[in-house]
């Protein structure tokens, strides 16, 4: 086109040039080249041959450039050297060609200022017509008002109209109607400013088609600058324009596509600059393209994702390979949604990247679904791992194909090994058969399984498990998996075992204590009994117990009592403690104590629960005990006499000491020379006083034994001996002494005070126990023997094989001050002897052959007993006999 325009300009009747904004002249037409004699160089540059002195020349060039820099049309005179060497002043008029408001190029027209005009007008016109006709593109010449004055032949050929027809060009649509206004406006503009115009418009060809032309309008002016004519050059640019338009249409279409795609599209320059963003994406962001050009510094990408996004884009820009990343983008309302962004380079034919297209697809729902799924999976894994049991997964053919962490932790073996559970020893040998039967049976039948077995933990301990398995079936009903749950029931099992044991214990304890338990649901009269309760009521344990069963066993009083208890228990909560008497089928009686409590049970039913104790025997024993209790108090007092005697001895010895000392003093002062009668009298007086004191002590001692006159009655010696043994049982046990009895049969009863005789026996027994205290080399045994004497007496002896006493001591054992034991029980024997003698009996002691001693006494039988029942302690301390009669 340039060359074509150049050709056109060359043919113009005038000197025309074009200049770049910096002042370099890149074109001159033929006229100007001929005028100056300076042709265009090969490199399309042309130096204006300014004819002036060097300083002025540079001023002119400078002025030209400064005019250019103003960007406004201008006019200036330039002295120019003509080709023939003559200097001519040329008036230069320059107009800028603007594109997008910027000066692209200047076009200039130079005329000779001193050019003569008018004198050769017609010739000039003829020339003019000839020249115009020779221009190979359509040229129109118009008057300054726009009327067509002339057309060259190419123009007439193109339009296929006559000059006359074309004069009215504005009306006959020579110019495409869409372009007409725009052309007229440009022409008017050019006219008013006196410059040229350059527009693109469509013109109707003779065949009825509009073709695009670049129309360059140049004004032809007279010397005074008045526009005489306009030259309009029409350069056919239709092919280019159509290509341009097609491209624009495609681009428009592409733009339309971009806009209509329901996904976000970003267009980036090869260097990553944002060039365009489609509507959906702009609307999503709620921002303008301008705002988004600097997206890296905005919050449109989630802060957590921004670095990744920037890296992805910059890596792609650097490497030229596509990128694909998932990030959260901020919606206009502030919400973030997940997008998958895929960036692809668009490459030209020579493989250079022209653009980047980045597709933004909203994957939020998918992402959420993925997250939810992952969460569910994690959760279910968590649940499986969190289950307090082990999960095993089997294939339909019973192969273990999976398990949770717990199962691996428990065995600490891999799943593949656990599959050999039947052979690798992890199943308890005793349980193996039931495992195989139950499990394989379930596999074979497809029925759920449930059994218990012991499994070997990694540390070598066996623990009980409950194994439950269910098949998972597909829609066709085929089993695809078996899911097994292994629950550790070892503790439960152990609890069951200990419960069973404690129930057994309880049963034993109930039996031993003759205590049974019961419960009675008051709403339904449903009765539950423990085994011992059955035994107490003497009911067959297999029989069903009803309230009637209970009531039928009660005597009259108990029946009423129980009815009252039941009434109160039905009315509310309470504690009951009552005795009942059972009448057994054999008419024997049982005394039963009942402790019960009524309250609502966990099911909300009013229930009476409690315990029944068979107290028949203990009641009997209690009665017996009550009988002896009164006697026991006295016996206890007497058996503690040994301790008492020590203090009595002390009491007696004090005045005795005084007496002895006084007597000695008395003797000394009386035998002195001269005798000290005063001191003698004093000592004698003190002797009398001390002797009386000693007598008082004795009186007190006697009072101890004569507090209550005991009655004489017929006594069974075996019976009272048995009672004493029973009373001394705890002492015997503590001393680890055993007692053997050798009781005579059918002994006559003796006449005696029961408690006093028991006291004597007790004394002998305790002496024997104490005599055995230091014995460690042989069994500690005491033998108590009773027998009837032919002399009308009953004799009882207590033998021990303890320390005994030497033969020289034998005479002293009944001495009130004599004892072989630290507890000072010596007086015991002397008191015993007093008691026995008060019964007209006799008491003696002898050493045994091997060890120890035997102490015995004999009491006359009742028939020969005297009437006297006074029992006194007699002072027989002077006796040296071992046998007293």
């Amino acid at each position: 086109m340039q060359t074509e325009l150049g050709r056109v300009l060359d043919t113009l009747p005038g000197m025309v040039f074009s200049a770049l904004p910096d002042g370099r002249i890149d074109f001159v037409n033929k006229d100007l080249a001929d005028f100056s004699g300076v042709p265009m160089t090969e490199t399309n540059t042309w130096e204006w041959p300014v004819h002036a002195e060097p300083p002025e020349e540079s001023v002119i060039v400078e002025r030209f450039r400064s005019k250019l820099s103003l960007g406004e049309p201008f006019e200036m005179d330039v002295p120019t050297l003509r080709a023939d060497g003559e200097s001519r002043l040329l008036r230069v008029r320059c107009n800028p060609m603007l594109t997008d408001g910027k000066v692209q190029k200047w076009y200039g027209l130079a005329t000779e200022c001193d050019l003569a005009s008018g004198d050769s007008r017609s010739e000039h016109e003829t020339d003019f017509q000839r020249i115009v006709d020779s221009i190979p593109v359509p040229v129109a010449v118009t008057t300054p008002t726009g009327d067509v004055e002339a057309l060259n032949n190419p123009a007439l050929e193109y339009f296929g109209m006559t000059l006359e027809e074309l004069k009215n060009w504005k009306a006959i649509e020579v110019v495409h109607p869409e372009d007409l206004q725009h052309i007229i406006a440009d022409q008017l503009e050019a006219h008013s400013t006196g410059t040229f115009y350059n527009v693109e418009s469509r013109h109707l060809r003779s065949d009825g088609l509009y073709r695009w032309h670049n129309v360059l309008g140049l004004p032809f002016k007279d010397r005074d600058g008045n526009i005489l004519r306009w030259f309009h050059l029409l350069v056919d640019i239709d092919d280019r324009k159509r290509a341009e338009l097609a491209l624009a249409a495609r681009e428009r279409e592409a733009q339309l596509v971009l806009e209509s795609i329901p996904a976000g599209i970003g267009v980036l320059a090869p260097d990553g600059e944002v060039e365009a963003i489609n509507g959906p994406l702009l609307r999503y962001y709620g921002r303008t393209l301008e705002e988004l050009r600097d997206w890296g510094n905005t919050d449109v990408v989630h802060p957590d994702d921004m670095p990744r996004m920037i890296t992805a884009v910059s890596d792609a820009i650097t490497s030229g390979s596509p990128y694909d990343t998932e990030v959260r983008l901020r919606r206009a309302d502030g919400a973030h949604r997940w997008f998958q962004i895929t960036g692809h380079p668009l490459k030209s034919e020579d493989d250079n990247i022209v653009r980047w297209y980045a597709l933004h697809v909203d994957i939020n729902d998918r992402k959420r679904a993925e997250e939810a799924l992952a969460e569910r999976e994690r959760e279910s894994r968590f649940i499986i791992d969190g289950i307090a049991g082990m999960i095993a997964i089997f294939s339909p053919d019973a192969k273990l194909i999976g398990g949770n962490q717990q199962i691996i932790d428990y065995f600490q073996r891999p799943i593949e090994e656990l599959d050999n559970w039947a052979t690798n020893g992890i199943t308890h040998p005793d349980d193996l058969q039931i495992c195989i039967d139950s499990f394989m049976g379930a596999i074979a039948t497809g029925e759920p399984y449930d059994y218990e077995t012991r499994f070997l933990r990694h540390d070598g301990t066996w623990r009980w498990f409950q194994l439950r398995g269910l098949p998972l079936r597909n829609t066709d009903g085929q089993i695809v998996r078996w899911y097994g749950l292994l629950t550790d029931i070892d503790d439960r099992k152990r609890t069951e075992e200990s419960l069973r044991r404690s129930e057994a214990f309880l049963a034993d304890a109930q039996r031993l204590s003759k205590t049974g338990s019961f419960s009675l649901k008051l709403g339904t009269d449903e009765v539950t009994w423990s085994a011992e309760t059955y035994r107490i009521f003497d009911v067959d344990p297999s029989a069903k117990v009803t309230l009637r069963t209970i009531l039928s066993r009660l005597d009259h009083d108990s029946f009423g009592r129980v009815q009252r208890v039941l009434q109160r228990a039905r009315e509310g909560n309470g504690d009951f403690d009552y005795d009942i008497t059972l009448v057994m089928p054999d008419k024997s009686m049982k005394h039963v104590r009942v402790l019960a409590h009524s309250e609502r049970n966990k099911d909300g039913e009013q229930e009476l629960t409690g315990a029944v104790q068979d107290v028949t025997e203990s009641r009997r024993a209690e009665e017996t005990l009550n009988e002896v209790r009164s006697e026991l108090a006295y016996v206890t007092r007497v058996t503690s006499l040994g301790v008492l005697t020590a203090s009595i001895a002390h009491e007696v010895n004090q005045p005795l000491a005084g007496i002895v000392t006084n007597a000695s003093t008395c003797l000394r002062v009386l035998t002195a020379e001269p005798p000290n009668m005063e001191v003698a009298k004093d000592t004698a007086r003190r002797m009398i006083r001390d002797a009386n004191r000693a007598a008082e002590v004795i009186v007190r001692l006697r009072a101890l034994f004569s507090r209550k006159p005991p009655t004489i009655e017929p006594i069974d010696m075996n019976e009272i001996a048995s009672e004493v043994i029973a009373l001394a049982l705890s002492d015997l046990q503590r001393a680890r002494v055993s007692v053997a009895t050798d009781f005579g049969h059918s002994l006559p009863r003796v006449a005696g005070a029961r408690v006093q005789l028991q006291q004597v026996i007790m004394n002998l027994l305790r002496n024997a126990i104490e005599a055995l205290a230091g014995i460690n080399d042989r069994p500690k045994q005491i033998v108590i023997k009773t027998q009837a004497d032919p002399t009308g007496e009953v004799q009882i002896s207590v033998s021990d094989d303890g320390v005994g006493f030497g033969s020289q001591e034998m005479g002293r054992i009944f001495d009130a001050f004599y004892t072989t034991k630290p507890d000072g029980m010596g007086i015991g024997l002397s008191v015993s002897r007093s008691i026995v003698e008060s019964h007209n009996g006799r008491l003696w002691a002898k050493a045994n052959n091997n060890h120890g001693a035997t102490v015995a006494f004999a009491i006359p039988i009742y028939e020969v007993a005297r009437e006297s029942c006074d029992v006194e302690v007699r002072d027989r301390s002077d006796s040296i006999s071992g046998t007293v009669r």
Partner: protein
Amino acid sequence: MMTERLLVSVVDDDASVRESLPDLIRIFGYRVRTFSSADEFLDSEWVSRTNCLILDVAMPGMSGPELEEELIRRGDRIPIVFITAHKDENDRIPLMQNGAVACLFKPFSDVALQETLDRVFA
């Protein structure tokens, strides 16, 4: 006489003993003081002047052996003759353990007492 200066103190809660012993002891040729309890003796001015202490074992308050321990604690090494109405040979051994001169069981003879005191002042 040299022995005239020697002081025998008697501590016994029993009045019979406190009344009868001084006459006899004076006959033996010693000075004598009686006290009815251990505290009375300890609080008196006679502790340091006592040359021999005749001491009852069982007394209300501080017993005889306790008084002996107290004297040992104070550093008063007075020869002690225990007298007791509780006749038990087994008691004699522990009583003699802390260095008592003798232990006489009541009632004791004048000869036994004289021999004991002679032994103390030998």
